[in-house]
């Protein structure tokens, strides 16, 4: 007899944890739309944001100011990343250049954070909700911190779908993604669109840093990398460039992880995410909701 309560608990937790992955996957999507670039520094971005907020809070700024300052700083870092490691390299025939360069920026932020704030984990205070705040759903207590992430992820998905489908902005992004030179001819400022997409992606990292750090309670300089890799898996599983995919991919991953952990072995939990990654790439690289890339001659 299956312990229904236990399974439900696992599934709910999986959805919650998965919503964290989705939030990161959303960040990958924005830049993927405009340049087909995935920012390998996204995880460290997230860590850096949390660290910045901590720093501003410790100086004595109120939350709102700390968040605004952090968002501002990370946008600038996003622009720098775009200028330095994406723009000059994105046109080369292989993607090795920007992968390595963005990864380099990520590692640099990690090293910088270690230098400034030390290697020890720093405590991150609760934001909006405490980790003890929860609501009971079907007899299972759902953490409000996680629900906040879930809600944000859902909100971002809706906004993105709307923006991409209904607004001139979405059309501009699509045009730039299709052919930046052609888009320029059509009067779209390709370069600005790309830059703005990197700013938006960095801001999403900022939001993620703000919402995820309180859940863990601690941030250390290597905090971002781990979780970024899981965000990648979520994005690939859902299909790169699909908002719906990011949300559902993240949750699917979370639920599978928790079910494997709960019913098979928690030590297999970590491996299973990567097994899924390799499997989905080998069988269906476009993911659950992605669009198959067409080879251009």
């Amino acid at each position, binding site marked *: 007899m299956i312990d229904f309560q236990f399974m439900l608990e696992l599934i709910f937790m999986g959805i919650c944890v998965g919503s964290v992955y989705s939030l990161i996957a959303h960040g990958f999507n924005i830049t993927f739309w405009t340049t087909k670039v995935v920012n390998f520094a996204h995880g460290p971005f997230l860590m850096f944001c949390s660290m910045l907020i901590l720093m501003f809070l410790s100086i004595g700024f109120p939350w709102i100011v700390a968040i605004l300052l952090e968002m501002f700083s990370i946008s600038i870092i996003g622009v720098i990343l775009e200028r330095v490691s994406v723009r000059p390299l994105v046109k080369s025939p292989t993607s090795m250049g920007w992968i390595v360069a963005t990864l*380099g920026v990520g590692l640099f932020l990690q090293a910088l954070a270690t230098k400034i704030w030390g290697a020890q984990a720093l405590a991150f205070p609760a934001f909006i909700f405490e980790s003890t705040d929860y609501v009971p759903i079907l007899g299972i207590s759902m953490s409000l911190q996680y629900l906040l992430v879930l809600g944000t992820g859902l909100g971002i998905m809706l906004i993105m779908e709307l923006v991409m489908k209904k607004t001139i902005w979405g059309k501009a992004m699509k045009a730039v993604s299709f052919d930046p030179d052609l888009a320029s001819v059509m009067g779209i400022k390709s370069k600005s669109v790309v830059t703005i997409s990197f700013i938006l992606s960095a801001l999403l990292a900022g939001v993620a840093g703000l919402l995820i750090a309180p859940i863990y309670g601690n941030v250390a300089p290597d905090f971002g990398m781990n979780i970024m890799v899981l965000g990648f898996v979520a994005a690939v599983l859902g299909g790169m460039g699909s908002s719906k995919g990011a949300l559902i991919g993240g949750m699917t991953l979370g639920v599978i992880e928790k079910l494997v952990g709960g019913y098979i072995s928690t030590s297999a939990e970590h491996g299973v995410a990567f097994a899924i990654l390799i499997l989905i790439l080998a069988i269906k690289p476009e993911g659950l909701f992605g669009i198959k890339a067409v080879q251009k001659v």
Partner: protein
Amino acid sequence: MNMFKERLFHPISKISFIILLFIAPLFFSDSNIQLFIFWGINILLAQSINLLSGFSGQISLGHAAFYAIGAYTSATLMIHFGLSIFITIVIAAIFNAFVGFLLSIPARRVKEFYLAMMTLGFGFIIQEIVKEWSSVTGGVMGLSGIPSAKLGTLNFFGIQANMVMYYWLVLVIVIVTMWLLKNFVQSYMGRSFLAVHRSELSAESLGISPGSAKQLAYTLSASIAGIAGALYASQMAYIGSNSFDMMQSIGILIMGILGGFGTLIGPILGAAFLTFVPNKLQFIQDFQLMIYSLLLVISFLFIPNGFAGLLKIRTSLEKGNRINKSIKAIPLKNDGKLLNEKQSSFLKKSFSPILNVKEVVKDFGGLRALNDVTISLSKGQILGLIGPNGSGKSTLVNLISGVYPVSKGEIHFNGKDITNMATHSIARYGIIRTFQDPHNVPTMTVKENLLLGTHRLFKSSLLACTLNANHSLREEEQMLTRVTEIMELCDLTDYADELAGNLPYGMQRMVEVARAILAEPQLLLLDEPAAGLSEGELEELNRLIRYVKNQGIPVILIDHHMDFVTGLVDEILVLESGGVIYSGSVEGMQKDHHVIRAYLGVEHHA
């Protein structure tokens, strides 16, 4: 090439350098011997990723996994079965090659950052397995008690080995690996790696199967990393799962990139940098990660070819030098005959159609790009293909060469059904094509690019190529002779050692056409070869195509230059909006009012 470099690479300086390396440890302290051993291991790692990422262009963010597998394989065999290190190194290499082959099965299907993700995942999975499979790997506790020279527990043929002997072992392995690698990258297989790196499509058009090339790259690269791992395990005497994490993979990547991908000297320098600098300059430690990460950021921008690029070191990708030195038995024939007798006579024999395209349809989504096109072409015939932009000319060429699958209809070549076959298989049947924009490998010289054309004619085995077997050298020489001949024919001799990417546009075109001819095509598809050519170059191209025709090779020629086309072709096919509106002789076309109205009248170029 400047004097200094010539001296540096002179055989005598090379040999004295190697002798120096052999006697050096006798004067070193133990810690420096150990450092040099690590340099050797790092060279192997850097060469391993160089082969995979530098030559064949397949990025790997999980290379430490191969390193780990090699280390654990060798270590467990030594501990549990008491095997000698010489055997465990070989087993580690072979087993790793097998793992590399297995990984290549999913990995060859993806590219770009999807591949980066996959290799990243592979790295994590192997690390998890190492951690959890504690009965074999020692799990998180690691594996200690590995026979090691530095503890005096390692034996070479019954003699207790010391650090100096272990150093010599590593040195010999590195030198042998380097020699084999050099032979390999200078062979047709090595060249095919770079071709796949530049453009899989263009590689396929010459009969190179990107899948097989990648598979080979993974297999070889993994096996080199396996050797490195085996040497590492015995050097350290203890291995733990933490030594093979993502940072290790990134370290391996940095060695390759910093040293210079695509050269053989570069990775040696990159490995030296990562081995010696942090150790000798301890104060750097504090900023080590920052420096490494900044190097990653700027390397592709400022030193795209790494240290090797700064030193202007380039690894030649053909064995011309080697051959001139050793084999002088076969003199260069300069009788102007490109194709060997047997083939050309075979080509001239028959006049029945060699290519049959039957009622072919191509739809893109809901859009019909080509509707019911039928062609038949005989040997020695040139078919001109004209029509306005978007009329389906290139689509037709892409269908014949297998770049796009056919929606409906059949294509037969030489009596065989080649409909929807892979491009490289079609190319191996002898259908060779060029592209609208030249698809040469810009980082290869003209000579090497032309050699790439002869790829499908090579028959030497992998072993023969890497061991420089006599018959493989002779084969390479034969191809080089043909290349020399065609370079003379196209006035390219002066540019033989120039990088193709540095040539003016028109010349790049000529190189591509010449490359296609060298592939000994049985059908040549030229997609706008004259675009962007000067008057003189046009003339040369004209000569070249006539030469091909004289060899009995049928040609399909797409071009907008009316005079150029009409002067060459036997028959002409006019397309409009995917349909054939005229098919027949040039004279007939000029009178055909459909054509005049649809095409000539509107868009007459000449």
